[in-house]
């Protein structure tokens, strides 16, 4: 692929392409989790939701021939898993972190079970928009082949930012997350608000999964997601529950995740696995730098169990 003309420039270009391509699942999961956590509950099960979303999107796209129906199916599957999480969490004395872990295992297991017959066939993929048509450099053109879902995610981030600040729904979610007593005193059901917030969060995470199977890497297999879901949950924490910061953080993560394959393509193969672990190491490093034992994080919803 590299004809030598651009040499090591392949690496930054691939990282740029990766930042756009690989970041999309991170972006959707983190935006979804942002909504859920703002309502005062954490859903660690989004890793399972991501894998279920990827599987159902691929299956529906294969059966119907329409990748967009696949995306929708992934979203609905995610919302159902979100409803399951919220339903169990609304029982008394049930711990939301533990339920998340359970749904992570359940979602992955169910996806592997139902997805067994989908490993062989090829399903129609999502189309890409070519933003690099003006360039002669194939690597740059490859980097700028952008998927519509990425654009939707980019638009969604500022919309959510705005919605949290100004809309009725945004305020209700934040009230439930800051003080469930206040929300109850206003006559709203906290459980219902959290149910909806978790379902919307699951819907977005499911769509993030559909990107994995229908665009990049663009097939269904059991190694499709390795921790992207949980990384995205961690990402929300250091994005300070701010949808706009989630967008930047996701882009940084996508770039980090693309580093391993990019270096491999120019012949640096020695630390391949270590470079692949870059997003996890980056998450951990950022959490170490930004967290503090002495104070709660700024911007943290007061009802959230994980930050207390």
């Amino acid at each position: 692929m590299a004809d030598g003309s651009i040499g090591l420039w392949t690496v930054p270009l691939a990282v740029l392409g990766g930042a756009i391509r690989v970041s999309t699942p991170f972006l959707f999961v983190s935006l979804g989790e942002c909504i859920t956590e703002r309502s005062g509950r954490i859903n660690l099960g989004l890793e399972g939701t991501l894998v279920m979303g990827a599987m159902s999107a691929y299956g529906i796209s294969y059966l119907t021939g329409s990748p967009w129906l696949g995306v929708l199916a992934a979203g609905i599957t995610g919302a159902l898993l979100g409803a399951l999480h919220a339903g169990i969490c609304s029982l008394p004395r049930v711990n939301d972190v533990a339920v998340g872990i359970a749904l992570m295992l359940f979602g992955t297991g169910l996806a592997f079970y139902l997805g067994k017959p989908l490993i062989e066939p090829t399903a129609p993929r999502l189309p890409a928009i070519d933003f690099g048509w003006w360039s002669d450099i194939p690597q740059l053109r490859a980097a700028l082949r952008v998927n519509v879902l990425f654009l939707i995610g980019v638009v969604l981030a500022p919309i959510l930012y705005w919605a949290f600040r100004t809309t009725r729904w945004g305020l209700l979610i934040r009230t439930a997350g800051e003080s469930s007593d206040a929300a109850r005193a206003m006559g709203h059901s906290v459980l219902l608000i959290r149910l909806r917030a978790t379902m919307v969060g699951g819907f977005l995470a499911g769509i993030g999964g559909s990107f994995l199977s229908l665009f990049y890497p663009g097939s269904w297999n059991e190694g499709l997601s390795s921790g992207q879901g949980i990384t995205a949950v961690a990402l929300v924490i250091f994005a300070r529950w701010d949808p706009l910061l989630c967008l930047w953080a996701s882009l940084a993560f996508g770039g980090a995740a693309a580093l391993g394959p990019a270096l491999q393509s120019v012949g640096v193969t020695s630390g391949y696995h270590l470079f692949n672990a870059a997003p996890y190491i980056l998450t951990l490093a950022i959490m170490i730098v930004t967290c503090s034992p002495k104070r709660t994080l700024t911007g943290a919803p007061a009802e959230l169990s994980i930050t207390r």
Partner: protein
Amino acid sequence: MTSEAADSAEAVGAVAPAADPGFLQRYGGTIEYVLIPGAALAGALVVFGIFVMLFGKNPLDLYFYMYQGAFGTWFSWQNTLTRAAPLILTALCTALPAQLGMVIIGGEGALLIGALSATSAALLLQGMPPLVVQVAMVVAGVIGGGLWIMLAGGLRQYRGVNETISSLLLVYIALAILNHLVEGMMRDPASLNKPSTREIGAANMIGSIPGTDVHWGLVFGLIAAIAAYILIYHTVFGFAARVAGGNIRAAKIVGLGVSKLILTICFLAGGAAGLAGMVEVAAVQGRTNANLAAGYGFTGILVAFLARQNPLAIIPVAILLGGISASGGLLQRRLGLPDASVLVLQGIIFVFVLASDALYGRIGFLKGKS
């Protein structure tokens, strides 16, 4: 929600007050801890039966083959116990920190690091007497796994990093380190298709319990679980840990060294999972490669929750779940179910067990009169 987690962790120790020592009043709490998880398990099996029925299989066949594959013959018993051994150890990795109110889910990572450390020790000491090598492997495995989880505990204590997320991230980092080393500097050039380290040598394997095919790892697991039980419920250290888990502020006020408690407990927890890694190398695989990431660390989380974080209860629960995973092969061959069906069943059990937390203290006839 943290207080709720602490409630249940605390409740394990505190059995109902014995003002009027009627039977139910004395044992009602204990009966609850058997009855409710048992009912949750039964409910999960029924739902799983319905699930396979949707795929045109007979649920009665399913239960029959599950029983056959898990406990039906001496052969399946041995298979079950072999799988239970690492599960006991990885469950301790979740159950010990739970006494402090911490949710550690990174047992898989500590298992991999423990396996890697144990293998390194064995390869460095080639030519020494087997007993020396084996003891060194145990020490290396425990220290490797222990430090790995202690890292998560330390980050929580000194940097306020959430231990649930950091321990899970460490699983992926551990896997990357393992792959890096077995494909790089530790690779045996003879392992072509499946990059692996060199073998630790047949003489250094820990072998089977006489008269069985079950390896000594099961004994390691039993000893570790009993030791953990004594540590938590019958020592001052364990009492301090449970106090800190119930109310961290009270613990600080009475002058308990919370940092030391967290680091020690996390080291022991990781050490248990690291020992599981050592056992898998020294009794099953004979070398380190990616096969070790078989999910024992994740199933261990389920075992710990089903056992309500009680180290003694972990033993029967690990045997039960070892049985479920042992029956996977038979379900695949006889019913044509995919290998992931065991994962689905584990997920359903986990969901039911957590939902059943809502039932404690609510079953009328167990309350007695007070």
